[in-house]
């Protein structure tokens, strides 16, 4: 029996502490950007949300590989929740990015910008994951097809990232590079803590969702044991793993 709730309390405390410290650093420690001024503070929430969401999609693909290798349905559940959480973080990344674009460039969205459009493509690609699952009634087939989708789409994420990095014409700033980037020390520290906080939030919510789903499945199993098949309402078609 899986116990996803183990360690959830400690993880939640670590998340709240890190995010509180990160926000304090953002507003009371990190210097104002010479070019953008106060607007640049959005960077500390927008970029971690985008990075963590992309990592979440890749994680969903890794869990899907484990599902196809082991045929253990728990991996399908883990993959489903990882992608589900990444989508929520992506929505946050898109909205905060749009707000930043409006404040900085004067437009909510710039269609000529490869970084923005490619990120939107990734989000829209993964937005089809749930409808795909919902369209397949048989749970076994649903899990298998969803895993294949998660692997292919997950592999697309780094490829897409590299392609955009190689693109020439972009207005989106590049501050994080393999050679260290051009963030000054206090900004780098603030960004690192923010990224850690958002990553911990992702891990906490993933664990929280897994715990809730696990508790619900066990309740259903208990009902079946006590009342038999007649006592359990048949589940309708669902995008979520059963």
């Amino acid at each position: 029996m899986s116990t996803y709730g183990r360690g959830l309390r400690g993880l939640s405390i670590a998340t709240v502490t890190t995010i509180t410290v990160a926000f304090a650093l953002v507003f009371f420690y990190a210097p104002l950007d010479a070019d953008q001024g106060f607007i640049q503070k959005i960077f500390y929430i927008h970029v971690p949300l985008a990075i963590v969401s992309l990592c979440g999609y890749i994680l969903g693909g890794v869990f899907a590989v484990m599902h196809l290798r082991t045929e253990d349905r728990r991996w399908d559940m883990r993959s489903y929740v990882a992608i589900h959480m990444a989508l929520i973080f992506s929505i946050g990344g898109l909205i905060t990015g749009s707000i930043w674009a409006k404040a900085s460039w004067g437009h909510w969205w710039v269609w000529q910008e490869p970084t923005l459009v490619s990120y939107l493509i990734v989000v829209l690609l993964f937005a089809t994951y749930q409808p795909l699952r919902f369209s397949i009634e048989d749970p076994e087939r649903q899990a298998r097809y969803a895993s294949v989708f998660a692997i292919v789409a997950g592999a697309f994420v780094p490829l897409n990232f590299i392609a955009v990095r190689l693109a020439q014409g972009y207005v989106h700033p590049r501050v994080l590079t393999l050679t260290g980037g051009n963030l000054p020390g206090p900004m780098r520290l603030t960004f690192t803590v923010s990224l850690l906080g958002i990553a911990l939030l992702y891990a906490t919510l993933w664990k929280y969702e897994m715990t809730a789903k696990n508790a619900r499945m066990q309740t259903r199993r208990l009902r079946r044991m006590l009342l038999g098949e007649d006592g359990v309402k048949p589940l309708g078609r669902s995008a979520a793993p059963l």
Partner: protein
Amino acid sequence: MTSILAAAPALPLHAAGKYVAGAYIVFLALVLVYVAIMATRLSRTERELGELMQDLQAREQAAESDREVEHVG
């Protein structure tokens, strides 16, 4: 509190302030909405567990009264 605010490099509440506030409020709102949805699901699971508990108690009471009838008989 005043000294903390004074120590902050700047909290400009001009044009930039509303965008920065908006971005951070969006983040907090997303987390809060998610927690609210999870709370609803948790209460549903709790209700189902309560129903199961009632069923179990009713069964135990029925079994006990059956035993008493057998004992008297």
